[in-house]
């Protein structure tokens, strides 16, 4: 195993999403696990090719929604029945149907906030700098090119061999990604 601290990995550039997905499959067949693909739009089948499992965003969203709903109703109950009760013609203090609209809105609010901030947190964003940005042509990753980066921390990583593997998969430009 060769591990060099100033190399983040090796990156190959592809022209089409099909080539990228194909390359990811082949690279994983070759035994590499520490890799990531970059595309200007979500490519169908790429997550499966990378072996990504179900993510945590739905669970976080559910928890956010539950917190918003339960917290919202509980808060209204506390305000209307406990801390600031108002006796209006003897009507019940826990007039729950009247609390439903706000409970509903807060459920949606809690779930949406959890979905967005959960997604950002799991993606470790904001992250202004990342080694892949050191590759000059990587600016095309947000326009019309598809990239595959095999990271140096992969146990199988070998600079020359890994680069050759990417070339054999019809990568246009294969370049080293420096770590700083």
């Amino acid at each position, binding site marked *: 195993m060769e591990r060099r601290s100033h190399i983040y990995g090796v990156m190959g550039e592809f022209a089409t999403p099909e080539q990228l997905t194909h390359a990811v499959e082949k690279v994983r067949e070759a035994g590499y696990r520490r890799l990531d693909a970059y595309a*200007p*739009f979500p490519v169908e089948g*790429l997550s499966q090719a990378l072996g990504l499992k179900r993510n945590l965003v739905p669970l976080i969203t559910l928890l956010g929604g539950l917190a918003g709903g339960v917290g919202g109703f509980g808060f209204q109950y506390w305000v209307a029945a406990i801390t600031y009760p108002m006796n209006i013609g003897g009507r019940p203090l826990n007039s729950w149907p009247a609390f439903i609209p706000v409970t509903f*809105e807060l459920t949606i609010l809690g779930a949406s906030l959890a979905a967005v901030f959960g997604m950002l947190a799991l993606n470790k964003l*904001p992250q202004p700098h990342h080694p892949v940005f050191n590759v000059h042509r990587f600016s095309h990753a947000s326009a019309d090119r598809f990239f595959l980066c095999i990271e140096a921390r992969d146990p199988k990583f070998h600079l020359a061999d890994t680069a050759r593997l990417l070339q054999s998969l019809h990568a246009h430009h294969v370049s080293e990604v420096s770590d700083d």
Partner: protein
Amino acid sequence: MSAGQPPLDSPEIRRLTPVLGPGYTYGSVTDKISAIVLTRPTSLGWFVGFAIAFSLMGLMTVAIAWLVIKGTGIWGINIPIGWGFAIVNFVWWIGIGHAGTLISAILFLLNQKWRTSINRFAEAMTLFAVACAGIFPLIHTGRPWMAFYMFPYPSTMGIWPQFRSPIIWDVFAVSTYGTVSLMFWFVGLLPDLATLRDRSVQKPMKIIYGMLAMGWRGSARHWHRYQSAYLLLAGLATPLVLSVHSVISFDFSIAIVPGWHTTIFPPYFVAGAIYSGFAMVLTIAIPLRKAYALEDFITMRHLDNMAKVMLATGLIVAYGYFFEFFFSLYSGNKFDVFLVQQRLHGPYAPFYFALILCNILTPQLLWFYKMRHNVVMLFIMSIVVNIGMWLERFVIVVISLTRDFVPSAWGRYSPTFWDWATFIGTIGMFVTLIFLFVRVLPAISIAEMRELVAETSEEEK
């Protein structure tokens, strides 16, 4: 269906009226849309339009400043008409916002590809409309600096909001709606901000877009979670958009005022909101595609579909009007019957008939293919529907409040110069924001257009 005519969703029809003009690649859609923001020189027309809109926004600022100095007495409101223009405009603006969420969330869930090129600016329209709407209840309180009383916060006086009040429901519904719309819009913008960051040449632009893009790099792992979050947001925004105008209709229907106290209000408010919203999307889309030569992205298919949605929701609204009328008569309640008479023969009857003309009769032209494909007619019709929906809220608010239960409580309402100044001023603010948006952010989602390119190229194979 007659023989020889292909089924409506056949590849043949889709080829004839595509959602994307032919011959586009990932690179060319990126170039074309980002160029509007990054390289295209700002046209004289933009400056003229912006100057007019900005002046009107200035008028709004003056009107609000004068209101803060003098109080709500500068408006035409007085007892019994406490609501007047402020609430009419509030409901109108919120309704306009609804189409943006409908396009971005509901059509996304229904997998309608034609939403792709219109969802970004429709969402922007939602945000700006909600911003305009939010001004009205705030200034209508008379003491806008005390508006925080409506939020539950631990005060030293130990008082809390009344959660049984529709006005408090409104606060929660509208602020949730604004927040969720903003997040939905921003999440959609994230990949496009990265594109602008990578393509801008000037350093300050690179820094600003770079900060907004938060380091988005298009990683497949990120897309994986991004897609989950986007789908979930769409699923959450769908019931939200239906609830917001329902809650706003509760402001009316929970009250016992004749003409307001009906169960048909929530669905018919929601339909009306979508109706006016689609009209506003057309009002914006038609000049936008012309000014920036986006006819390949916002095709006739889009305009045609939007016209059809307008027609459908317009018919639901017509159904609402009819049954509102019918149930008032059928109930036998003399106050309700009297209200119907007031709509037809009272001092505000011309507004009611103008409303029927704008909202029910004019849109029937949309049944005709020729009308839906005549861009100028479509533009005029979208304006007519916008006016009609404004009249609807005027009729609901003013006629019911001027004709309460006892004649001693009757009154008249007419707006003053400051009412008009505030209203026209918010239109100025809305247009100003739209102009700025088109200039600094991609008006069409670039990432989704690339996806559309990938999908259409697959279909052709």
